[in-house]
């Protein structure tokens, strides 16, 4: 019979242990706080990549607008932090004390209604998940129920990203405009800026990431995970097996949106600001590139993709700032042409077989059926 009872198969377990060791032990021990905080920033994109694995890798739904959900999550968090930083005593030099500074600069004299509930942390945490989730539900329902898919869907998500950026930049008084929300200071009175806070936030983020990995892996192993794969290949066959294809696509898209939003919220906390430059078309495409480089069929691959591409981005931009975008473009072309399953595909093709042989020679126990779907081996 098929081995399906275990949560991770052997290669996934190795991926899990390796990632946990690097993120929980090796990086905190070897990096200084500044670099560790950079890793925390990279990891916020790993949430997005994780969502894209489910939505794009498994479900075949390419979204070029994940920045929208990353941004919505980030802005929800930033609104809470900004309100806390804008207490009456902090802002007593303003003409209207007690409202965020950018509102005061834009001649707004009272806190807008939609900002009011963000005084509550509970509401904010719910909003981080629900606002992007509902937004994805609306877009998904509107598109998938009408059978809009493939390239058309990708273009529409891209348009949504452009629209949201323009809206945020245009509504400066309500959103902070092009500068975004800066000068975020405390979370419930706890200062998020000093080194020890950065370290704690880093670990909170890693724990959250592993929780999301758990959820993604759970979904992947249920029948829903197999239906997503089935849908990617033969949409009509799924439909004529009695499933509403649109509902499954909406689910995958919403999950990807929620993961991206959690990443966005952690970005606001770890980096200390949020701006429209993380919402628009370019960041949204970059997020797809991280996922493609890591391997869109592999949960762990995509996370490594997000970390490594961002690490490369930081190192390259430090020395050759102009070259980075060309580098990124070249990387994407290389992935599409030469290794469509990304790093995890290369791993699965070249490294994994050697490890398997090593294991096989050590204990020649048969009966293994390595379920390599996760590593992208049998993709088209």
């Amino acid at each position, binding site marked *: 019979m098929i081995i399906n009872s275990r949560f991770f198969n052997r290669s996934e377990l190795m991926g899990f242990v390796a990632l946990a060791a690097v993120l929980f032990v090796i990086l905190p021990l070897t990096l200084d706080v500044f670099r560790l905080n950079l890793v925390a920033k990279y990891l916020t994109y790993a949430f997005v990549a994780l969502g894209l694995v489910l939505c794009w890798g498994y479900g075949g739904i390419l979204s070029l607008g994940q920045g929208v959900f990353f941004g919505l999550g980030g802005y929800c968090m930033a609104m809470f932090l900004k309100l806390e930083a804008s207490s009456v005593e902090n802002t007593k030099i303003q003409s209207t004390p007690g409202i965020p500074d950018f509102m005061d600069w834009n001649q707004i004299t009272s806190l807008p209604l939609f900002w009011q509930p963000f005084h509550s942390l509970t509401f904010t945490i719910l909003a981080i998940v629900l606002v992007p989730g509902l937004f994805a539900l609306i877009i998904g329902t509107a598109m998938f129920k009408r059978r809009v898919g493939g390239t058309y869907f990708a273009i529409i998500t891209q348009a949504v990203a452009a629209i949201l950026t323009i809206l945020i930049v245009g509504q400066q008084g309500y959103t902070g405009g092009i500068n975004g929300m800066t000068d975020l200071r405390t979370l419930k009175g706890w200062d998020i800026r000093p080194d020890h806070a950065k370290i704690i936030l880093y670990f909170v983020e890693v724990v959250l990431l592993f929780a999301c990995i758990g959820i993604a892996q759970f979904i992947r192993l*249920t029948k829903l995970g197999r239906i997503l794969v089935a849908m990617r290949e033969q949409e009509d066959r799924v*439909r*004529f097996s*009695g499933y509403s294809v649109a*509902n499954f696509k909406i689910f995958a898209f919403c999950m990807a949106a929620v993961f991206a939003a959690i990443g966005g919220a952690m970005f606001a906390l770890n980096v200390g600001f949020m701006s429209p430059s993380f919402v628009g078309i370019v960041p949204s495409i970059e997020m797809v590139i991280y996922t493609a480089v890591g391997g869109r069929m592999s949960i762990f691959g995509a996370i490594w993709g997000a970390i490594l591409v961002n690490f490369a981005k930081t190192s390259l931009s430090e020395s050759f700032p102009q070259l980075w975008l060309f580098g990124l473009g070249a990387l994407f072309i290389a992935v599409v042409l030469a290794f469509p399953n990304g790093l995890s595909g290369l791993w699965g093709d070249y490294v994994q077989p050697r490890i398997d042989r090593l294991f096989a020679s050590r204990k020649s126990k048969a009966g293994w059926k390595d379920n390599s779907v996760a590593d992208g081996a049998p993709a088209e």
Partner: protein
Amino acid sequence: MLVGQQPKEFLLAVSGLTVSFDGFKAVNDLSFYVEENEIRVIIGPNGAGKTTVLDLICGKTKATSGSIQFRGKELTKMKENEIVQTGVGRKFQTPSVFEDLTVFENLEISFPRGRTVFGSLTFQRDQLVKDRVEEVAEMIFLKDRLNTYADELSHGQKQWLEIGMLLIQDPDLLMLDEPVAGMSVSERAKTAELLNRIIKNRSVLVIEHDMKFVEDIAHKVTVLHQGQILSEGTMEKVKNDPKVVEVYLGH
């Protein structure tokens, strides 16, 4: 012999069905009736509208006018997945199976349980599912290949797998579009044997070009030509119809 019967005894009643693509009527005012446990074969030259008729019944194409009643329910107003849940199964002309999944998983997805998003999240692979999958796999000659990925199967095996995916749905009306096309002689014989076994207790609507195969299985034959019925009846009657000989069998 059909004339005296009441319409409600029919499993499927297609009446006045018309579909027009930009003014071209692919199916034109078509009416036919399928009884319980009847095997009906639709034949006709290329472009006669055979596949379109199946598309219309299963909801893939929406009718311009006319009605399709299945057990008294109007199918033209239903979505594809609802039509499947009412008991209509459809096999496509080219084998459409999920190549990145194993034979077991292909069959399991078609098992009629947990078809909603949350149903599929909580779906358990229990003994009932396993037994049913194995039972069907045995019927479609793939019992030893349950753990094989479907992309490693031969063309004929993929066709069988898709038939198996329909079987596990247990539809009351099974629609097959050229089930033996592209098969070798031995696969063809096995498929005929398979079809003869699975048609018990259900009605079947088959499109097929292979006249030998049609003669073997058909209770009644409907000949379509330019979206309309040219002739209908037993194979014997249809074969001797001069109109049929002229447009189809004559070549």
